[in-house]
């Protein structure tokens, strides 16, 4: 729960929460589990009306945010989407919007940004590779110059909603360094292989690029310059992911606290035993830390502060670790019912475990922090 919100921000949060309660109840989330697309386009369009995809887009292309700090406002939305187990590719679409805003030519911006903001274009970022995981400097997916422009070859994995995206941001390696490309999935040579996802509210795919020919207009930014912008995109992704995990954790934890008040054993509510209440209090402590550091990171990345890179990694490491630890133990505190398919808690646990791994687990973030600090002059 974010504190010290303006009236406009509070209204945004309340409206998102109500929209999800009305159109994305857990019953609907469960209906979508076996659906290959996994989310409703109608709710996507309603979300677009609330600004879900326009906050990182400049005003002249149909964007804008309530506070002027787009990522701060968008993180408030992300937290509500987490709390409500919203299943669509919100994070990846916004990351691509930020990429085009940051790097795009006027023509690219005009071609894609209004459509993204309006909810007509769903976008995703193909970053991870089987042998490079979440490195921002990919190696196995290559772009080589061709007569028309560029030729893409290679494999990307864990691409969020790769099967339903209208636009794919591909970060590739070139002989001159990394580069970003905007690829439309209808292009010849692009094939999509859906993966089985631990998180039942997510869809991930492998994307194979077999000699995909792109014209020069597909290049986003300059060849060789993509490492710095990929870093910014990762920071944005981490902030949105942390906010999502916080919302998920808050909801799953609240379910558990309530259950411990209602469930009676040995003549009294199980939540009165210190063996359980101390654990719940402890997770409440860590959740407070999660809210504090996630909010700090969003503010820092939004304002492009010097500490943005470390702030986002610190948030990711803390939130990633404690969201999973908390919700996993929430299952334990429930006892047997927590292990059943029909009880909703596992939907929350799955989502935070998935978030913990995507973009790099806490231990990777710890080491990345040392890399970042060593790279600065003492």
């Amino acid at each position, binding site marked *: 729960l974010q504190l010290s919100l303006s009236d406009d921000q509070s209204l945004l949060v309340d409206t998102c929460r109500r929209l999800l309660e009305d159109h994305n109840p857990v019953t609907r989330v469960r209906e979508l589990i076996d659906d290959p697309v996994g989310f409703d386009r109608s709710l996507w369009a309603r979300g677009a009306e609330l600004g879900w995809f326009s906050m990182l887009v400049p005003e002249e292309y149909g964007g804008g945010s309530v506070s002027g700090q787009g990522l701060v406002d968008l993180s408030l939305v992300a937290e509500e989407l987490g709390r409500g187990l919203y299943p669509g590719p919100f994070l990846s679409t916004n990351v691509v919007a930020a990429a085009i805003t940051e790097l795009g030519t006027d023509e690219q911006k005009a071609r894609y940004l209004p459509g993204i903001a309006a909810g007509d274009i769903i976008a995703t970022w193909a970053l991870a590779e089987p042998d490079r995981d979440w490195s921002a400097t990919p190696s196995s997916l290559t772009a080589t110059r061709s007569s028309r422009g560029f030729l893409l070859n290679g494999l990307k994995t864990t691409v969020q909603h790769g099967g339903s995206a209208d636009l794919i941001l591909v970060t590739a390696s070139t002989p001159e360094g990394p580069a970003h490309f905007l690829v439309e999935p209808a292009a010849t040579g692009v094939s999509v292989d859906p993966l089985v996802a631990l998180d039942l509210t997510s869809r991930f795919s492998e994307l194979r690029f077999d000699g995909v020919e792109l014209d020069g207009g597909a290049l986003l930014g300059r060849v060789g310059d993509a490492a710095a912008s990929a870093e910014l995109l990762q920071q944005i992704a981490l902030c949105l992911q942390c906010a999502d995990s916080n919302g998920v954790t808050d909801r799953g934890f609240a379910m558990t606290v309530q259950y411990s008040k209602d469930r009676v054993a040995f003549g*009294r509510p199980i939540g009165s035993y210190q063996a359980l209440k101390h654990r719940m209090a402890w997770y409440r402590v860590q959740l407070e*830390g999660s809210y504090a550091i996630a909010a700090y990171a969003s503010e820092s990345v939004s304002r492009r502060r010097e500490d943005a890179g470390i702030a986002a990694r610190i948030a990711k490491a803390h939130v990633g670790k404690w969201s999973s630890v908390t919700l996993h133990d929430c299952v334990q505190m429930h006892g047997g019912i927590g292990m059943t398919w029909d009880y909703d808690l596992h939907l929350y646990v799955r989502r935070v475990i998935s978030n913990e791994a995507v973009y790099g687990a806490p231990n990777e973030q710890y080491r990345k922090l040392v890399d970042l600090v060593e790279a600065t002059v003492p």
Partner: protein
Amino acid sequence: VSSAPSVEEFRVRVRDWLSANVPLKEPHESMLHCTPEGVARDRSIMRSLWEGRVFGAAVPEEYGGLGLTPAHEIAFREEAADFRMPEIFGNAVNIALPLLLTYGTEEQKKAFVPNILNGEHIWAQLLSEPSGGSDLAGALTRAVRDGDEWVINGAKIWTTAGNFCDFGLCLARTDPDVPKHAGLTMLIVPFDSPGLTVQPLTLVDGDVDFCQEFFDDVRIPGANVLGGVNNGWQIATTLMVNERSAIGRGWSLGGSRSDGTDAGIVLSRALLEEARRHGRDEDPHLRALIGEAWVLTTVQAAASRRVSAAIRSGELPGPAAALLKALVGYTAVRAGEIGIEVGGSASVAWRSSLPSPYGVSRLTSQNIGGGTTEMQLNAVAERLLGLPREPSSDRTMPFNQLRHNTMSATPARPGPERAG
């Protein structure tokens, strides 16, 4: 009449004044210096902060403060981060001062608050007893009214720098015939009262920061009641909220550079350099541990800012301060574990010329002082999460019918046995 300075004007003045008048902290300098020289130095720094009109920003002018705002006070704390602060006044400033301003009579405020700010009076909390610390409301120390005076008998313990204190806030039982929370009174006790004996305690790390006190027919003026007779539990509750918040932000009279929201994250390279000295800075496991230590301290600072602000604005209730106290305990212990792993053998055996290494911090625990972590978790569970208390009759039964300790948890006092 000059108008009040803006926060930024004040900040600049504080910065310049501190640079000209107060020494910088030395590396590895411990917070408290419980020696006669250390205390004398703190008194003189405190006095000079007051004379320089930089301290007590949010205290009203009629009680010796500057009559400015909490934002001015935060600016002071940030600017003071690198300077030697008179930390011996920690309990006076963090604990006694806000309680006096909230609950004190006009006479008490005028008598005591200026003497804190000008460095005259060092204060102590007299709450825990040898017979119990967590069960604070079970205090056995008795205060009986005798004419114009209170007569106090009993014992208190874990008093920071008790051997250098001038005044203490003493929680005493004034009515044993009612349930325990309803029969307590907070009394202002001068440490030079006849019958009050102070005995320093040595802790496992060799520090002598704490004392215990024995009260033998200690007589204090009847007017030295803070916040009303038999209202002591309310005062103690406020005290603990203030204490948890102060511990959560580091306890120091100065702050840290990260107290402000826009100061940016600063990560100390100390552990990284320690690993390099041992030739282990490329070890991926150690690198992950160093990163984890940074995560701990940064999250602690961010949580402290968030919770403190939320308590001030009313978005979180006072007991939320327990969140910070619990987090500090975890952070300190985990940081100690990481330190000892990075330091390796140098953590447990070192040249006498070097400062105490990380191993020493593993000996002590931040999970006890200022209220055990278990009590903080109870506060979070019951006051924030609304979970039920463990069933017990101690809240409803008259205190004199309750079972309580008869054996002291600390070494017996020296000298002849007490009569009675």
